[in-house]
């Protein structure tokens, strides 16, 4: 592409809670299928709980409130009959040239990137995460116009920084991966209600019936037991580090708050008229209450981490909140499964 020629594809940028759901929602909406971030999250069966003491992130056990990165996109596109065309590259030069060709053709392009190298992130918010999604929709004077769903408005990224981000090294390296929407089915070809139903059923299964102690409502109870024992087993300092990691995963890492429970509540609200099941609106309200309980956990946990806790705000109190969350989620997903059966 001649850099003196500015390209800007008319692309509607919407900020979202989470990059994977936000990018897919924005890309598909560009192609005429208006679908919210919450709907993408729900159809893709994004909600999850897992506590994996043997998997370490920053040397601390992994707590997951959503399915593995990439899973929402693949399930949602499959269930709605959307076709994404993916490419990956060995050479940054070829990867950037391929991106330019798509932009010249007027096609907005999703890119996998290492967020650490994206220079429009303020330095203290940069972190090493190699599955960050964004959309490139223009280029001018050697910089790309980027719709990054984490940001309120489109941003510019110099070509060399974007190239570095697309070829970030390390775990889950993006290897220049890029994708664009090749086909969006028309309303008459698409089974939206069927996709919603499948999305719900899979979440119910993972929250209620995955064997072993680590996943779903059982996983929340397992975490409760661990949390209760942390002060005695790990000492105050290490216990606070473990707790801080959970709070960050729950409230900060693109979760929409409450460990994705608020986004899922929004999905159930939208799903009610699609499936003609008013009970889903009631379940949405219950899901919001559960999100609030998770937030209670985060607030008390933050006080413990920062030595501001009152006498009653203890690790035992946290464990009780977790057990309450587990009971409520087990009941909710059983009712949800019945509703869509």
């Amino acid at each position: 592409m001649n850099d003196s020629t500015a390209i800007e594809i008319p692309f509607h940028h919407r900020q979202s809670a989470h990059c994977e759901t936000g990018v897919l929602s924005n890309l598909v909406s560009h192609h005429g299928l208006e679908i919210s971030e919450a709907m993408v999250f729900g159809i893709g069966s994004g909600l999850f709980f897992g506590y994996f003491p043997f998997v370490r992130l920053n040397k601390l056990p992994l707590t997951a409130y959503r399915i593995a990165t990439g899973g929402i996109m693949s399930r949602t596109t499959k269930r709605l009959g959307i076709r994404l065309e993916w490419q990956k590259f060995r050479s940054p030069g070829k990867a950037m040239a391929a991106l330019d060709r798509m932009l010249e053709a007027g096609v907005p392009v999703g890119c996998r990137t290492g967020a650490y190298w994206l220079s429009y992130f303020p330095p203290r918010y940069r972190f090493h995460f190699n599955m960050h999604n964004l959309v490139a929709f223009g280029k001018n004077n050697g910089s790309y116009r980027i719709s990054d769903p984490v940001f309120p408005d489109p941003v510019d990224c110099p070509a060399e920084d974007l190239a570095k981000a697309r070829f970030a090294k390390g775990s889950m390296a993006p290897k220049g991966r890029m994708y664009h929407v090749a086909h969006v089915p028309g309303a008459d070809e698409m089974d939206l209600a069927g996709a919603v139903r499948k999305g719900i059923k899979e979440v119910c299964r993972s929250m209620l019936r995955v064997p072993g102690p680590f996943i779903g409502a059982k996983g929340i109870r397992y975490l409760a037991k661990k949390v209760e024992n942390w002060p005695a087993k790990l000492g105050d300092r290490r216990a606070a580090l473990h707790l801080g990691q959970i709070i960050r995963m729950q409230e900060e890492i693109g979760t929409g708050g409450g460990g994705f429970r608020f986004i899922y509540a929004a999905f159930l609200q939208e799903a009610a008229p699609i499936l003609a099941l008013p009970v889903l609106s009631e379940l949405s309200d219950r899901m919001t209450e559960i999100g609030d309980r998770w937030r209670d956990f985060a607030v008390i946990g933050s006080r413990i981490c920062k030595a501001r806790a009152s006498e009653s705000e203890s690790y035992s109190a946290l464990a009780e909140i977790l057990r309450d969350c587990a009971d409520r989620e087990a009941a909710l997903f059983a009712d949800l499964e019945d509703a869509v059966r």
Partner: protein
Amino acid sequence: MNQLAKSKIDPPDLKQSLKIMIVQELNLVDVNPWEIEDDDPLFGDKFGLDSIDAVEVVFQIKAHFGVVIRDMKEGRKVLQSINTLSEFIEKHRPA
């Protein structure tokens, strides 16, 4: 504080209330509320606040002003300074 916050507070007083709330609720023993400038970054080196403290601020905003910040992404934008926080509360406070 709760009474103050729930009564009709004009914007300058709202900012003072927020400063007092942050210092008291986060136990910032070495910070005087009046030292916080309206456009000071709340999080980062100056006051030593981090994302764990943000959870408490979000909780206190709801408790004192009835304004809910559901999403920490939204929160990140709102919690930048006393100015951004007071603007958000003014806009979203229940009538």
